[in-house]
């Protein structure tokens, strides 16, 4: 079970690019890296998932180095509405047993 470490909190300003890094030193060969976003009073929402190199969608980019021991979620030009908790998860999701949500990173976007 790959353990993840990410900063507890981050502050940013509107219009800036935000990069949140997650460490997962004991990631296994068949593990994927998944990021979720959670707003207050809502359930987590899937943002992006990757296995290696770079993945980009309409919301974010995910950068994964060759050794896969870390990953970086990049949010371009954040707005106030991006204020949320961001979770990094690693695993093959065998029946949810390997989905371990840590405390996440609380991102605060300031005007």
């Amino acid at each position, binding site marked *: 079970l790959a353990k993840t470490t990410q900063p507890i909190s981050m502050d940013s300003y509107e219009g800036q690019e935000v990069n949140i890094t997650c460490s997962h030193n004991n990631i296994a060969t068949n593990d994927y890296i998944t990021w979720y976003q959670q707003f207050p009073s809502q*359930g*987590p929402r*899937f943002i992006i998932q990757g296995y290696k190199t770079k993945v980009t969608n309409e919301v974010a980019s995910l950068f994964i180095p060759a050794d896969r021991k870390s990953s970086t979620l990049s949010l371009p030009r954040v707005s106030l509405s991006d204020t949320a908790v961001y979770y990094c998860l690693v695993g093959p999701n*065998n*029946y*949810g*047993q390997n989905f371990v949500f840590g405390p996440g990173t609380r991102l605060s976007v300031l005007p």
Partner: protein
Amino acid sequence: DAGITQSPRHKVTETGTPVTLRCHQTENHRYMYWYRQDPGHGLRLIHYSYGVKDTDKGEVSDGYSVSRSKTEDFLLTLESATSSQTSVYFCAISESAGQANQPQHFGDGTRLSIL
């Protein structure tokens, strides 16, 4: 957004009473999960289901039971609620499990207070 409905959304009850939370999905996904979320603990898996009548325990299953008689419904029961079970409960679904990591989709939660 995935079609997941949790009911009730809020509930206040007393210690020792039975409580049942319902998760209903319209996606026909095979896998369903119940989590609880408490300050400082992130989300913790209570029970999960990998098909009708097929369930198994998660990380924090003591004091909880589940049932899945239909693909679309997954019930979480607290047989005799205790104050330590005051929490926000989330249901999640996923299409499959296995080598390819299948993202889970979450409901909006049930806030349960046990006095």
